[in-house]
């Protein structure tokens, strides 16, 4: 029996599993910050994909994928700041942190 050495597929499968778990958290978490945590997991899965393709792709020397991942991290910081501000605002105005309760603009 022989194992395949660690390659691109290993990282892609890890990223796919992390993404699926983030998606599950986004849909099922009832606390708005829990939804935010799921989004962070999904962004991290996407970053793993970017860096893994950069490492194993034909342009491994140029590190463009890592620059993309750094941009994603910066945008994730923006998203977390604005999202947390929105959640705090939601709590101040509606006294709830559950996304289901803030449904007055839904229909």
């Amino acid at each position, binding site marked *: 029996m022989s194992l395949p050495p660690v390659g691109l597929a290993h990282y892609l499968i890890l990223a796919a599993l992390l993404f699926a*778990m983030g998606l599950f958290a986004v849909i*099922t978490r009832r606390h708005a910050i829990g939804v935010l945590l799921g989004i962070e997991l999904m962004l991290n899965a996407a970053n793993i994909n970017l860096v893994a393709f950069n490492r194993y792709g034909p342009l491994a020397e140029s*590190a463009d994928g890592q620059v993309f991942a750094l941009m994603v991290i910066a945008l994730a910081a923006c998203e977390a700041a604005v999202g947390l501000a929105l959640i705090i605002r939601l709590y101040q105005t509606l006294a709830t942190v559950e996304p289901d309760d803030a449904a007055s603009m839904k229909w």
Partner: protein
Amino acid sequence: MTWLGLSPEQLLEYVGFLLVAGVSLVSALGVLFAPRVLHAAVWLLFALLGVAGVFALLGAHVLFAVQVLVYAGAIAVMIIFAVVLLERGTDRGILAGNRHLFAGVVAAGAFAVVVVPSLVATVVTVGLPASAGPGPTVQENVWVIGRLFLTRHILAFELISVVLLVSMIGAIVLARADRRGEAEETVAPGTGDPEPAPEAAEEAKAS
């Protein structure tokens, strides 16, 4: 000398990969199923550190440092801070009586069931690159990324700073409670205690 068909270096890489992948996945499970959001946020911290380990394995030294400093150090701590600000008996478990549970299982399960087997099938039939040669050293990685940021990606680099500034101002404007005209509705003046407006709370209960 080989073991399971792997050279010692490959074996070491395999062990490292299993370690960081295990940390990431187990911590992600904690993010999913921790009953309290505060615990889920702490699990997210460990998941982010696991992903940082993945970056280190992939030879992305700069990203490893940024992940630890910015993600685990700043974003996770900011989220934990917000949870502590908000957490007042608002937690309920994720599983009990959750009407989104079925949708979540279907969506995430469908994603995993479609993507993972298709990846495995791709590896079996076409084959993905399995070895990438030696990774860059720390100096090379820092040099390459710094150079890319100031040459090919300079426009994105400048724009991202504008985006950061805008989101910072937006977060301050959104989170500030005592805006003129609304101060009496949301915050009792003088107390500083963010009591919600009674009619808003009633609307939230009624809907």
